[in-house]
């Protein structure tokens, strides 16, 4: 294998794949990136056995062949080379080594045989549809903060993607929860997604996908089966296994009958929560919301730090109520809001509260109160 490639293009492609590679690996070849040179193109692949990204980039003077080289080392070398430099990659001679040359720099990297590289089987995936980059971003950004990190609840360690109906309109829904809060985002169901199974996309896949979208801003081709999902972007393809588990019946925990309605301006509310939470203890992050007709008093106390109180005007006509929330969870939600007003639907201080933008319920959040 031999080829010449422009530094910026190679760095971008390596950047797409290298973050999949874990820093510590018990299987040596998983620390490597697979390089395959074919007619005018270099394909780079990285995998952690659950998730695989393949990125392609144009190359010159290609002599066909393949090898695997240490991903992070190669990335660091290319990163440190001068901008605009041409890089020559040569793995033709000695089987166990690859040479990287640019200007007066020469690196020789130890390689492992490409035939040992564990690529995922290519097979056809039964369901396919296309989503705009903006929709994929929205589905991820408004839900991923709620993904559980608790390993024993592995079936919550991802985003549940499925087809559903809202007021009889078919929707594609993303749902994530850690048991303390739940986030649900929906977009109109794209063509081809109608018969898709509900799938749980693992957190790492979600994060890698989100990074790719930032860099390659174009429509995403999604195809999936009940064990695998693939996201295609033209010159990059991400394939991932799905979490093998049953997502809980989340609709059961979204309360429908909450009858205390609060509307508050999003930005001043978020700023007040942020200010008051300065006092709450690192571990609890609790803030108390005391509601009375027309006003909301936010407060926090901690034995070490003292107390904080702030009052803001709100639209509220219900009976007085005191309810506590984790300030971090409130801010995670307000961070995702673009509208001016946020609406809360509460029942009492111990029951789940529903939160959404006043004029838009495509993103819906459920928060479990804290004991304060």
């Amino acid at each position: 294998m031999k080829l010449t490639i422009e530094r910026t293009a190679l760095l971008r492609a390596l950047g797409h794949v290298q973050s999949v590679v874990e820093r510590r690996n018990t299987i040596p070849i998983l620390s490597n990136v697979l390089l395959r040179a074919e007619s005018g193109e270099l394909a780079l692949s990285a995998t952690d056995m659950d998730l695989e990204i393949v990125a392609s980039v144009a190359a010159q003077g290609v002599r066909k062949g393949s090898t695997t080289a240490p991903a992070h080392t190669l990335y660091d070398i290319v990163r440190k080379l001068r901008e605009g430099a041409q890089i020559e990659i040569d793995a033709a001679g000695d089987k166990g080594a690859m040479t990287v040359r640019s200007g007066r720099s020469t690196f020789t990297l130890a390689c492992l045989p490409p035939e040992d590289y564990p690529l995922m089987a290519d097979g056809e995936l039964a369901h396919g549809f296309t989503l705009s980059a903006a929709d994929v971003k929205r589905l991820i950004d408004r839900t991923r903060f709620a993904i559980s990190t608790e390993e024993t609840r592995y079936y919550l360690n991802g985003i549940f993607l499925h087809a559903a109906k809202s007021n009889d309109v078919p929707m594609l829904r993303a749902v994530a929860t850690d048991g303390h809060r739940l986030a649900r985002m929906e977009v109109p169901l794209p063509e081809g997604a109608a018969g898709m199974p509900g799938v749980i996309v693992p957190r790492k896949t979600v994060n890698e996908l989100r990074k790719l979208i930032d860099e390659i801003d174009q429509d995403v081709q999604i195809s999936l089966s009940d064990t695998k999902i693939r996201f295609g972007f033209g010159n990059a393809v991400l394939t991932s296994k799905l979490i093998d588990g049953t997502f809980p019946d989340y609709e059961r925990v979204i309360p429908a009958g909450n009858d205390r309605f609060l509307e508050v301006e999003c930005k001043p509310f978020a700023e007040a929560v942020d200010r008051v939470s300065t006092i709450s203890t690192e571990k609890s992050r609790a803030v108390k919301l005391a509601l009375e007709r027309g006003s909301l008093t936010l407060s926090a106390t901690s034995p070490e730090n003292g107390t904080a109180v702030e009052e803001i005007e709100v639209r509220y006509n219900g009976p007085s109520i005191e309810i506590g929330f984790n300030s971090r969870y409130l801010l995670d939600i307000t961070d995702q809001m673009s509208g001016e007003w946020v609406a809360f639907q509460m029942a009492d201080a111990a029951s789940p509260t529903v939160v959404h933008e006043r004029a838009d319920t495509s993103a819906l959040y459920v928060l479990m109160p804290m004991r304060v």
Partner: protein
Amino acid sequence: MTALCRDCAALAAALPAGGRCAQCGSPRLVAHAELASLSLAHIDCDAFYASVEKRDHPELLDRPVIVGGGTRGVVLACCYVARLSGIRSAMPMFKALKACPDAVVIRPDMAKYRAVGRAVRELMQATTPLVQPLSVDEAFLDLAGTERVHGGPAARTLALLARRIEREIGVTASIGLSYNKFLAKIASDLDKPRGFAVLGRGEAMDFLAPRSVGLIWGVGAALQQKLARDGISTIAELRQRSEHELTARYGAIGRRLARFARGEDDRPVDPDAPMKSISVETTFTRDIARLDGLAEQLQPLCASLALRLERAGRAAAAVTLKLKTGDFRVLSRSRQLADPTQRAETLYRAALPLLRAAADGTAFRLIGIGADRLAEAALADPPDLFAADPGARLAAGAEAVRRRLGAGAIRRGVIRAEDDDAD
């Protein structure tokens, strides 16, 4: 010989004739040669949870009362009437009820006990700033130098404090007075309930001599057995060995053995001593290598750790699994929890993956589990959107374990009486 009346706090130079206080006629006198010079105390409330419940339900005053049950199914506390039937704390509930079928069982109200415990602590802190709480209902107090403030020796101040706790809070406490923590803690247990025991320099050595080495803090069943094999079962026998010899043979604890055996303990009363971790461990009679055998030992330890956490009013935000190999290498593995917990089941589920990773066929002689990064009890086990049906959650957890370890890895079990002394 100084004598002190525990009811009216009158002091006398000698025990009055007839054994009654010359001022108020009370028989509750305590007399000791060093009474006026000792100032280190351990105060321990009597059958605390049960006493609080009796205070709030006077009609139960002479009934056997057990606090416990709920999800854990063990006795958390029992009153002295219940103890007459042989009931002890940490006993499985079914066993306790067999021993005393007419016992009144009360579900624990930890928030209430913590509030009462706080009130007791405030009275202690009003007496001396040097209060080191050990749990919700017991603490060490150093009263050295408070004689002038309180207008009398520490013993008198303590009698007044105990009286105040009884009158203002409505529970009784027992006091152990000595010259260090080790002996004060032993003393508070000698005269329970509503007791006042003194261990002075004059008799401490004689008092300790015939006692079992198990009295020393840190000497569990395993070390006790080992000492017995080496011909040491009483503290007097321990005293015949030098500190050097004990350290060489038993490691770091040898120093404590040597010092405590001679009634020496230089640990100060530290009011800021943060409770950093709580742990329990057990040494096996025979080394265990198999995962299921180790897991079987771990389960009752988790129950016992959960109990300790609840009593201390703390919650574990991380767990540490400790294993000691047959050749005494210590392994410890930690893991953070998604939320602080006081539940045995959650502790067990968090520790099991650590155990699975460590159980590689090595034979272990000891297993322990510790709660780290302690948080306030109020943060423990926050309400969960999907926890409405605990059975479903339990089943999901069991399913996850079976997926990883095979069908036989987890099964429904009972806590057997033999496992009770695990810690």
